[in-house]
Structures are given as C-alpha cells and as structure tokens.
C-alpha cells in the first residue's frame, strides 16, 4: 500500500492551484503519512489554520486537503522584519487503498491537521476461519 503524492516538494507554492478569492499564497504543507492496521493517517503542518478553515475532499482515490487561514497581522503596526509570509495550504494525494469515506476523521490542533482514513474492509487483513469438515 502506497500513498503517492502528486504535488511538489513542501515549501513551494502549489502550481495549478485553483484561483483564490483572497490574495493569499498557497503552500504545500509538510506532511507525515503513516499506516496502521486499519487506517491511513495524514498529519499536515498548517500554522494559522483553525478547525473551520479546513476542507477535506475525497474523490475516488484523490484526497485533497485545503486550509485557508484568516489573515492575521497586528493592527496598526508596520512590518520591520519579514522572514516568512503567512498563506493558505493545499495538497493532493492519491491513495491506493479504498477508504471508508463515512468514517473519515479530521481534527485540527495547534495548527496541525490530523486525518484518519479508515481502510475499507477488503483492504484490511482478514482472518479466515477454518471450519471443521
């Protein structure tokens, strides 16, 4: 089982990202993906993003995660040093296992999105009972 990534390296702006209504940059978030016996877990860094700013879409085997944080800058103060530029996040993954879409769990905590994608029954290891003849 492999979760293939179809987007460029993290840190770069996602090309071909949909036109945004706000003049915000779109970054590829640094992401961990791991697999347990019954689920694929996706953990993505999205600083500035609250629970309501996240969209998760699963179309066929294409998973798209999007985070659009509210723009935050200290009121009235001028930037005197700029080392990073806040923006939105988007990343697309192709999953090779079927997922139980109704049981997908997403939570955002401290600017980190955690997505639990339960594997659909056929992908899980099945125990075969041997019946006595």
């Amino acid at each position: 089982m492999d979760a293939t990534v179809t987007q460029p390296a993290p840190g770069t702006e996602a090309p071909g990202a949909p036109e945004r209504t706000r003049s915000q940059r779109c970054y590829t978030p640094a992401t961990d993906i791991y697999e347990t016996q019954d689920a694929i877990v996706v953990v993505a860094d999205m600083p500035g993003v609250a629970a309501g700013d996240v969209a998760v879409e699963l179309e066929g085997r294409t998973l798209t995660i999007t985070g659009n944080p509210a723009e935050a800058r200290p009121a009235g103060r001028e930037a005197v040093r700029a080392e990073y530029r806040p923006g939105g996040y988007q990343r697309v993954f192709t999953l090779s296992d079927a997922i139980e879409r109704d049981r997908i769990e997403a939570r955002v905590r401290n600017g980190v999105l955690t997505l639990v994608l339960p594997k659909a029954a056929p992908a899980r290891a099945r125990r075969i009972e041997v019946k006595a003849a």
Partner: protein
Amino acid sequence: MVTRALEGFAGAWDPWRELEALESEVSRLFGGGRRGLSPGDLPVNVWADEDGATVTAELPGVETKDLDIQVVGRRLTIRGERATTEPGEGGRYHRREREAGRFGRAVVLPFAVESDQVAASLKDGVLTVTLPRARADRPRKIAIEAA
C-alpha cells in the same frame, strides 16, 4: 534632496519585497524550502510602532509547556521543542516530512521593552509575542517655553 530623489525612485521600504528576493534565492540554491517547522533557526516576523513591537512565528504542533520565551534588555529569545509523532505499534511511515526536535531564535528589537509587560500567546500553531516599548525609551516631546 538626495533622500527625496531616492524615495521617489524606490518608494517606501518594503520588507516583503526583500523576503521575496530571499525566497527566490533560497529556491534557486536548494530547490525549494520546507514549509513547516524546521529545527534550528526559527523564522520570525517583527511588527513595530512607537508603542511597541509584535513578534510572530509559526510553531505548528508545539505545546505551550515546551516553549520558553525570555526577554533581556532588547533581546527576545524563543526556544522550544517539538515532539515526534508516533504511529504506534505495527504502524509504519510512508512519508515523513515534519521535523521534530529543538528550535531556537534570538531577535534584537529596535528598542528596549517593559519586560514585565511582555505577553505571549500560542493560537492555531502561531506564536504572538507582544512587547510594549520601555517608558524610558519612548520619544518625549519637549515643550519650548516662550522667553
């Protein structure tokens, strides 16, 4: 006259423009930087007006208890550690981009601050430190008395 000519030519100083130049330089050298938290140097944004400064930094997945913020004179120091994610028993990684470990950063502010009034908040993985300018350091208007 020279100053005025320069201003007319370059416009107001824009730190974002400098950042953009730096970003493209970094991409050219390393083929794209990482977006997320990386150990070592922590990028910060600094905002200021005559009443004080605000320093922000992106710290996704960092807990308040793992952060240490200190102010000495004009120097603000941010230090901390980010824990690793554990897939648990039987789990295995397909992709591991989020870096864990210690990070730190010292910023020299444009003015002295009231160190006992410095406030810090960590919300949605973004640290905001608000530093009021020291009373003694604020510009004072001097009234001119009539002779």
